[in-house]
Each structure stands twice: as C-alpha cells, then as structure tokens.
C-alpha cells in the first residue's frame, strides 16, 4: 500500500467521522422535526460514504463497499420521506 493512498484514505475516514458527528449534532440541537430531518438524511449519508470511500482506497472488499454506499444513498431519502409523511399524518409537523 502506497503512502499517499493511505494518507488520502485517512483524510476520507476522518472527514466521514466529522460529517456523522455534525449530522448527529444537528439531530440533537435543531428545534423542529422537519429541520431535524436534514441532519441525518444528508450529513450521516456523507459520513458513511466517506468511511466507505476510505475503505475502498485502502483496498478492501471493494464490491461490497460500493454496494453498501449505493444502498445507503438510495434508501436514506426514502426513509426520510416516509418519516415526514408519518409526521404530517399524525400532526407532529405543520
């Protein structure tokens, strides 16, 4: 494993961790449900995407990582939409 690739992978993993931390911070600190939906549905997706990209760069099971990243990117908006619809149906979001 070459050193620049490992450095790039370390940068991606650190960035992913920071994105996930900020997403959870938004989930904990935002005032409303519809604003709280933004933190996990974007920042946490970027966080897990960064960790998976770092794993691909350092040379692991590439196919499974790409599969996990694709699945997370495809399903996170769907689950956010379902949560927003449920919140509107029971009157938790105006």
């Amino acid at each position, binding site marked *: 494993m070459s050193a620049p690739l490992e450095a790039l992978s370390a940068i991606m993993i650190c960035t992913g961790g920071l994105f996930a931390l900020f997403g*959870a911070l938004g989930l904990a600190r935002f005032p409303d449900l519809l604003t*709280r939906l933004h933190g996990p549905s974007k920042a946490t997706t970027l966080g897990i995407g960064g960790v998976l990209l770092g794993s691909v760069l350092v040379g692991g099971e590439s196919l499974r990582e790409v599969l996990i990243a694709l699945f997370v990117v495809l399903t996170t908006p*769907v689950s956010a939409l379902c949560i927003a619809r449920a*919140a509107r149906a*029971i009157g938790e979001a105006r």
Partner: protein
Amino acid sequence: MLETAIVFATACFGGALLLTLWRLVRGPGACDRILALDTLYLNVAALVVLHGIATRGAWQFEVALLIAVLGFIGTVATARFIERGDIVH
C-alpha cells in the same frame, strides 16, 4: 496514520451515537424517535465498517450491509404503521 484516523473516526461515531441516543430518549414525538433509530443504525453500520478496516476483515462488510437493509425495512415499516395504522394493506 491510518490507525490514528480510525481511532478518531470511532470517537466521532461514538459521540454521534450518544447525541442520537439523547434524541431517542428525549424526543417529543414518535417520529423523532423513528428518526433517531434511523440515524442510530446508520452509525452502527459505519462503526462495523471501521472495525472491518482496522482488522482487515471481510465479514464486517456483509454485516454492515445486513444492518443497512434491515434498518431501512424497519424504518419504513414503522413510519407506515404510524401513518396509516397498518403495514400491509
């Protein structure tokens, strides 16, 4: 360098888990708790992937994929149940 990055990212994901757990306990409504569970399983999948990078293992990625799939199904089923009262109609 990679080991330091993995330790740092693990600490970040641990802090994210604590913040999410706080929202899960405190959250004023049911939808906040579903959202907190959604974030929780994504962070746990990322932690499993980090463990796979640290130990150069192969089975951790299958575990992470299973956690992602089952968590998505659980989130959608719970949101559907809250929205209209039944899951399969």
